[in-house]
C-alpha cells in the first residue's frame, strides 16, 4: 500500500480548489510562513527574540485593566 505523506495530502487538498481560489489560498498560507521559509507562528516569533509567553497571571497583572472593544 503506498504511503501518502502529509505533504502529499496537503498538495491533494489544494488541488481540489479551482484556479481562481489560488491567490487567496497562497495568501492564507503565507501568513504562517514567509517567502523565505521563516516560521511566523506566535511561538516562533517569541522564540526569535528569546522570549516566552507571559503566564496568565502575569498577563492579568499587567494588562487585566485594559479596555476591550467589539472586534478581535
Amino acid at each position, binding site marked *: 500500500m503506498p*504511503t501518502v505523506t502529509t505533504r502529499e495530502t496537503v498538495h491533494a487538498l489544494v*488541488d481540489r480548489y479551482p484556479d481562481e481560489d489560488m491567490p487567496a489560498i497562497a495568501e492564507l498560507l503565507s*501568513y504562517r510562513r514567509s517567502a523565505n521559509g521563516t516560521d511566523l*507562528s506566535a511561538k516562533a516569533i517569541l522564540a526569535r527574540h528569546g522570549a516566552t*509567553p507571559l503566564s496568565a497571571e502575569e498577563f492579568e497583572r499587567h494588562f487585566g485593566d485594559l479596555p*476591550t472593544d*467589539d472586534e*478581535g
Partner: protein
Amino acid sequence: MTNKPPDVIVPIVFDEDAIGTDLEHLSDAAGTALDQLRREVDRDGGLPKSRLLRCQPEGRDGTRLGGCTKTRVPWPDGPWGIVFRAGEDPKRPFALYTLAYGERHPTRAGKPSVYEVAGQRLEEILARDLRGQEPDTPAATTQDTPEG
C-alpha cells in the same frame, strides 16, 4: 486641578519577518502609518498603555486572542491594527511582540482581518488538523518515499 498619573510606557518588539510579510498584503498608506508609529515607539521607548486594548479570548468575529493586546493605527480609530503577544523578555520583565499588522475591517472579500491573521499565528492549525489525513484523490504520483 487634577493630577493625572503619567501614562505607562510598554516596551514593544517588532518582529520584522511577520511585519514584512504582512506589509506585502497591504497598501502603501498602511506602510506609511506603520512607519509613523515605529518612529513614536523609538522616540518614547515603547507605546503608552493608554493606546492599548485587550483582545478577546473569544471574540464575536470568531477569533480567540487570549493573552494578546492590540492597538489601532493610526490611533485612535485608524483602519489598521496591530495585535501583540505578551511575553517575558530577556532584557526586562515583559514586552509586547508584534504578532500581526493588518486591516481591522478588510474591504476585499476573503481577505483576513488582522485579528484572523493573529489567530492563525497563535494556533498550530495546519500541523494539527491535517496530520494523518489522506486525500480522497491522491496526488498524481504517490511513491513509497516518506519525507524526512
